[in-house]
């Protein structure tokens, strides 16, 4: 049975008349990189705030590491590192002093831990500059350093590549699987589809305060896969398939036949064609990108 680091059930949160989150259930397995994908205002950040004890749910329950956040909040949150929205630090303190301050609140590895965290995000040279003088990218990196400072089991990163240059973005994206490889669970909130697709094992797609799709990334992008079929006699094959259960999803372009959503049924289709004397020269599932899946699910109502 899988071990869940996050178990959220029936989360509801309203701000006045606005229902920000409407009955969200979330299960995140230990060691996974879990992506929360959705446009601004879709409820993913509010959900994350409830997971971190920053917002109280109107209904529902959050369990971290198998225990109720409402009852053991302080002890459980000590095992969590996070960067929520833009990194938040005291502007008049240096990057190093900001980490010292966090070490004072919850001591862990002292100065050695601070130096290691700064080094890991390539911030050692700027560590003694005041936070307010940092560029946005440096602030993001300091946020990640703070998130990993106390060696947490769960790391929640909300838009961690915001403001980073391409090199910084690449470094952070490389860092996320590294953190997971060390046995940590990572939750990545992002509106960048390719980012989530690149680094996340599982994905939840948020829209209007609900999760509209969830599952392993590979499964999610594979589920809607299209099957491309090339045969010597495409007209005969089309006639045959028009009389099959795949008729509604069939189309023909440039001599190839395409069957939507049939990526996993290649063997059955091949059998049908062969039994009628039509032998496929090409039979391949065309993998969707997460972007395709996202827009297929959310329609044109949102902009990720």
């Amino acid at each position, binding site marked *: 049975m899988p071990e869940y680091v996050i178990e959220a059930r029936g989360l509801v949160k309203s*701000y006045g008349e606005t229902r920000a989150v409407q009955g969200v259930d979330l299960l995140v397995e230990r060691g996974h990189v879990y992506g929360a994908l959705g446009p601004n205002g879709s409820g993913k950040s509010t959900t994350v*705030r409830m997971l*971190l*004890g*920053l*917002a*109280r749910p109107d209904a529902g329950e959050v369990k971290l590491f198998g225990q109720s956040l409402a009852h053991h*909040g*302080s*002890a*459980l*949150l*000590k*095992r*969590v*590192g*996070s960067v*929520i*929205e*833009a990194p*938040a*630090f*005291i*502007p*008049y*303190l240096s990057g190093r*002093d900001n980490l*010292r*301050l*966090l070490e*004072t*609140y*919850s*001591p862990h590895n002292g100065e050695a831990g601070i130096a290691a965290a700064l080094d890991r995000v390539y911030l050692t040279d700027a560590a003694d500059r005041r936070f307010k003088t940092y560029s946005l990218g440096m602030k993001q990196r300091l946020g990640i350093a*703070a998130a990993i400072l*106390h060696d947490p089991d769960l790391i929640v990163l909300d838009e961690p590549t915001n403001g980073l240059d391409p090199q910084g973005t690449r470094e952070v994206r490389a860092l996320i699987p590294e953190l997971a490889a060390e046995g940590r669970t990572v939750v990545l909130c992002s509106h960048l589809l390719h980012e989530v697709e690149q680094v996340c094992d599982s994905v939840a797609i948020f829209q209007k305060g609900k999760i509209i799709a969830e599952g392993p990334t590979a499964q999610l992008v594979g589920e809607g896969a299209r099957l491309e079929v090339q045969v010597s006699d495409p007209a005969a094959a089309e006639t045959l398939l028009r009389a099959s259960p795949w008729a509604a999803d069939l189309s023909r372009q440039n001599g190839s036949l395409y069957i939507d959503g049939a990526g996993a049924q290649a063997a059955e289709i091949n059998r049908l064609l062969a039994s009628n004397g039509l032998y496929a020269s090409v039979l391949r599932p065309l993998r969707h990108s997460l972007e395709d899946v996202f827009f297929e699910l959310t329609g044109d109502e949102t902009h990720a």
Partner: protein
Amino acid sequence: MRKALAAELFKTRNRRMTYVLLLAMAGLTALFYIVLWLRLRDGPSASVASQVRYAGLRSGMSFSHVVPYGLQLEHFFATLLCVVFTATMMGNEYDWRTAGLVVSRGVRRRDFLAAKVIVSVGFTVVLVAVGFVVALACSAWFSHLYHLPYGDFSIGRVGNAFASIGRTSFVIVPLVLMALLFATIWRSAGQAVGFSLGFFFMESIFTSLLDTAHGFLEKIPEAMINANAAAVMTANGVSGNEGQGGGPFSGGGASLPMWRGVSVLVLWLVVFLVIAFWRFERRDIQE
């Protein structure tokens, strides 16, 4: 709790505003004494009233009267500065979103807030003490300059000085905690400073109007902060109208017994603290 307090002290030590406010306290106290000195230097006019006022002023500025008059003078400045210190200490945590950073790392909310309460109260005492040291220096200089009495240097007098610093700090704390409460409620430093200082200035105006009323309206000022602060401040040694320990335009209060002043102020402290903790524990840190 110990860790939260250590962290709060770390922030306070490294915050420039801490030193700016302490310097402001020293500077304002010195400035006030200098203005009085300039006034004294000109001497009194021929009228009897002017000569009486002049004599009173000289006496008040002497080293022998530094405890009541020095602290009386400080009460006003210290209240302004301590309210600014506390409101920004709490409000900035929301403005910079660092409250969320800390709470999401498992720091108990009550520890976070309690550390702020302790540091605010501690800062109030330090600020009053700094102002008092400046007042001591200025009044010693005046006493030397005008051959005014220094008073005795008994242990009893020193003890009274410390007790008076404590009383002065105590009467400031309700407004300090009011600032903390409103910074917590409104999640903003600016609004908390505005409301608390507005209250500090306006309370005296409204209560002085109510003094002329009859029935229960007449009793309202006795339940407010200024009149009871004045009652406590009389124990510093200033009597009558000189003992106004309340707001900047305060009158009255000196007639109330001290125990009553202490009780009412403690009640206000408890109310502000209970609401602040209750609100901070239950509400969302970030929306």
